[in-house]
């Protein structure tokens, strides 16, 4: 650290303030959800909110430590940090399982989830590796190494098993995509074995990751929605089957995109945009139709298996138990919500929505604050993500940029999957909502991610790497 420089100089205040706002909102939601009228004190450590206050304190303390340490250590120690998180991931596999998963390390009275910290470790090593690459070194070799850095912890996490965190690790694919590490070398290698073919680049290989994710997203949404029907209170009698709902949404979405893009594009591009959107619509509609068709054509036990995988069959007492209750909680919030501490479906006490203070914490929030609340919440997350991308893009160091992209993609994944499972867009795989969900490991790991980013950003002008 340079002499005479304040810790807070060059700090990105908008991001830090957003982070603190999330902490306050999250804490308030945990308090309301877990509230025991006999122990209303926020600092009552026998209660979940009391414990969460402790976790918050520890997280902020760790954040302060991060700020005191020069940011160069993350680059220097990326390998040992990564390896130690891997060691923890291995050690945890020998621990007694809790709720069917070997995810917890007991240290003293507290439980730690190494998987949460593995995200940070992986992000750092990936940043270090990619930043060490020459721009021209993006060959098959570098793609494989970068993927290996991501896949090793993924395998260990799958062994626990922890499907949620496993899925979150695929967020690093977007980071690699941003940095030009795509599957194109792999595709080229395959394609160019065909005699007479000699591509230098394939469009599919280059944009493989976003395309694949768009398709996966579309498939999952189609599968989850095609079994439901959509009804309207103000138009009784109008019942839209779920599958038509998907197609209808696609049409509406393409129209909006078309109008929006026409508005911002030049005259010359307009033709191209029309073509692209029509192709995109035809493609996505046919993917959705074929998924729906295939699924409806499946035999009962095959259907059951897919439904089980999607989490539609988690509870033996009823198909779709958790998601249905979670969606009821969210949907019953209405426009303005039932009011703070007035949630009736999603509280620990009523227990209709299981895990309402951890994985399903969006439920009590949505129930209490309604659409106004959820709109603001998602808006705040969007702001945070765009802010981090902006921060990422202003870094002169590639290490910093890769790390920043890792942070934004990890957070985005958590948001998309977590809220997705509350609104019927994602299968029930337990992952926390960043800065909201009750739990020490996630709170600490998200805070560490955030503070390391803030520290790196505040020292962005120091190092030229």
């Amino acid at each position, binding site marked *: 650290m340079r002499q005479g420089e304040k810790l807070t100089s060059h700090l990105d205040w908008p991001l830090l303030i957003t982070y603190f706002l999330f902490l306050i909102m999250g804490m308030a939601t945990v308090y309301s959800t877990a509230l025991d009228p006999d122990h209303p004190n926020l600092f009552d450590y026998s209660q979940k909110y009391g414990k969460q206050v402790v976790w918050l304190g520890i997280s902020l303390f760790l954040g302060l430590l991060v700020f005191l340490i020069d940011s160069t250590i993350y680059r220097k120690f990326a390998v040992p940090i990564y390896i130690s998180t891997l060691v923890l991931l291995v050690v945890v596999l020998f621990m007694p399982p809790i709720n069917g998963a070997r995810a917890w390390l007991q240290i003293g009275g507290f439980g730690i989830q190494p998987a949460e910290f593995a995200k940070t470790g992986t992000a750092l090593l990936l940043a270090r590796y990619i930043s060490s690459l020459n721009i021209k070194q993006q060959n098959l070799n570098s793609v494989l190494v970068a993927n290996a850095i991501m896949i090793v912890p993924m395998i260990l996490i799958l062994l626990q098993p922890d499907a949620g965190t496993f899925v979150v690790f695929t967020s690093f694919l977007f980071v690699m995509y941003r940095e030009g590490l795509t599957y194109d070398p792999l595709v080229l290698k395959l394609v160019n074995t065909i005699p007479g073919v000699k591509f230098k680049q394939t469009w599919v290989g280059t944009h493989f990751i976003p395309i694949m994710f768009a398709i996966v997203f579309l498939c999952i949404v189609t599968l989850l929605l095609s079994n439901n029907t959509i009804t309207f209170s103000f138009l009784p009698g109008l019942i839209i089957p779920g599958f038509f709902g998907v197609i209808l949404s696609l049409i509406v979405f393409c129209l909006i995109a078309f109008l929006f893009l026409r508005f911002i594009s030049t005259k010359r591009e307009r033709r191209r945009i029309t073509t692209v959107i029509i192709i995109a619509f035809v493609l996505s509609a046919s993917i959705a139709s074929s998924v729906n068709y295939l699924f409806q054509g499946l035999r009962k036990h095959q259907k059951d298996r897919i439904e089980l995988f999607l989490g539609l069959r988690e509870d033996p007492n009823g198909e779709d138990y958790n998601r249905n209750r979670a*969606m009821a909680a969210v949907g019953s919030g209405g426009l303005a919500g039932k009011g703070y501490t007035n949630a009736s479906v999603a509280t620990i006490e009523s227990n209709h929505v299981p895990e309402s203070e951890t994985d399903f914490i969006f439920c009590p929030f949505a129930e209490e604050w309604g659409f106004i609340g959820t709109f603001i919440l998602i808006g705040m997350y969007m702001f945070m993500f765009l802010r981090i991308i902006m921060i990422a893009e202003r870094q002169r160091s590639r290490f910093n940029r890769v790390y920043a992209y890792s942070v934004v993609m990890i957070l985005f994944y958590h948001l998309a999957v977590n809220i997705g499972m509350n609104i019927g867009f994602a299968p029930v795989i337990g992952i926390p909502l960043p800065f909201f969900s009750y739990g020490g490991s996630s709170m600490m790991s998200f805070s560490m991610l955030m503070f390391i980013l803030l520290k790196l950003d505040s020292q962005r002008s120091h190092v030229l790497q």
Partner: protein
Amino acid sequence: MNFDARKYVIIVFIITVGLIYIVRLFFMQVIDDSWTLRAQEIAEKRKQIVPPRGAIFDRKGVKVVSNRTYYNLMFIEDEIKHLDTAAFAKVLGWTKDSVALRFKEIVKEQGTYRDKNDNYKKKPNYQSDRPYAFIKEMTLEEIATIAPHLDKFPGFYEEITSMRSYTYPNGANIFGYLSEVNEEEIKEDHFYRRSDNIGRAGIERFYEKELRGQKGIRYIVTSARNNELKPYMDGIYDTIAKQGPNFKLGIDILLQEYGERLMNGKRGCIVAIEPSTGEILALVSSPTYDPNLMVGNRNIAKNYPKLILDKDMPLFPRPLAAEYPPGSIFKLLQSLIALQEGVITPESGFPCNKGMVGCHNHASAGNLMDAIKFSCNPYYYAVTRRILQQGKKKSVFADAEIGLNKWHKYMMSFGLGQKFDADATGLRPGLIPNSAYYDKWYGHLRWAFSTIRSISIGQGEVKLTPLQMANIACIIANKGWYYTPHFVKSIGNKGSLPQFRVKHRSMIDAKHYDPIIEGMRRVVYVSGGTGGRAKINNEEKIVVCGKTGTVQNPQGEDHAVFTCFAPMDKPKIAIVVFIENAGFGGTWAAPTASLMIEKYLTRKVKDKEKEKRILEASFKN
């Protein structure tokens, strides 16, 4: 190579997902309310609070119908865990088998439905997650032995309910009773839930909507284990239960009680009305029953079969629903119509020739007043012939047709031949025949006065309910008008129903009533009058104007009837006493009426000898 443009792919990806989620949330939370309904289904319980029914007071302010707290032993099958049937049976004081039997019985009581979604299979309505009453309507003493043990039997709990309580064992036919609603009633009126009570007869039924009050609803948040947690949204949607308003009756409960006592051992009825208001002061139907016998479904199950099978029909509201020929009291109306039609004057005399109809031995009546006094049958044959055969047509048949229909109109104006718009259930219209009626019997223009002459003296086809008979006395006392007889003087402080404030007028001019009233006085106070026993204490302090009647009964002993009002100058009470099989009206009916009048006007009865004679008389065979 520069990959900077790829940041836009990521930005678009993030924003797209964000927008999709916001749109989806907008649909789920704001537009589609099926999730709200689902949440209510999952996490809310609507608890209805049934208020006590409105209390009922008599005209003097005595509370005659009130509410008493009872207890239901409720259970929810899903919450019962390992029921120790033996221990439970011991607490109830039942046998083990009867406990098991009761569970089966409850399921059976709920009935079955056809499931549309399952090949229309029969399925029970019973649902194991809903509360049902294991034992209904226990008294405090009964529940007190059970309640302390209930915590050992999870799934069972006590629930408070209120039921009727009657201060006097009288007026059962006025008040009616309550019993459990049936499926149809639940479907028809969403106010009711299973095991609610509904008014079944009398005032309880007629004023059901007012008496039942307003239910309160509490919304309660329940947990996944069905525990009640807290009021939903701090109770902002809760409504408070409102008890039905207090009812004030025209009934004088002491008069009612006295009337029921006097009628003990007799079949028949007494109806007393205040002429100036139409308020019913007493309505005795004999034999009757103690209304407390029909409180609560357990009592009803025990007592209803006995009451319904009793050959004297205690559940039958005779004053409202029994249709009797009126007998000689009908002569009062014939007189009025004849005077109005101008076919006689008060001074008209007709000989008592017993050629066409019998009569008792008396001097021929030289005027109308004496005809009433003697109740001379031939006199009224002559009078009624003059009403019906006025010579307006050459053909005697066509003439009778015109006459009868005119006569019918007069009778309708006395409230006869039609149901009163009264606040009671089971009212009957009686019968006043018109030409169409006889045409059906004899054929068009095939009848004349001589064919139908028995209506002259209130026999034959003519039928009146005792309430109509009493109302005739009111019309005469008022000299030409009446208010529809009714029980309820005031609902809360809103007064009686509007239809009870409309004056109905007869088609007879007021002046024509004077000779009739004089005749009715002579019935009681002039020697040779048929109703001498109606005198109160043999004095003329309270002047009673009355008319006896003896209704011929082909099945047995004649019925006795007496209708009257008092005092003559300022009528306060009009009354009819009808005693089946008691023979001549002057012997039993007249003195009973006098006792009722004395009781009402002076609050006590001096002539204990007379009272004893009536109390001890019995005409039931």
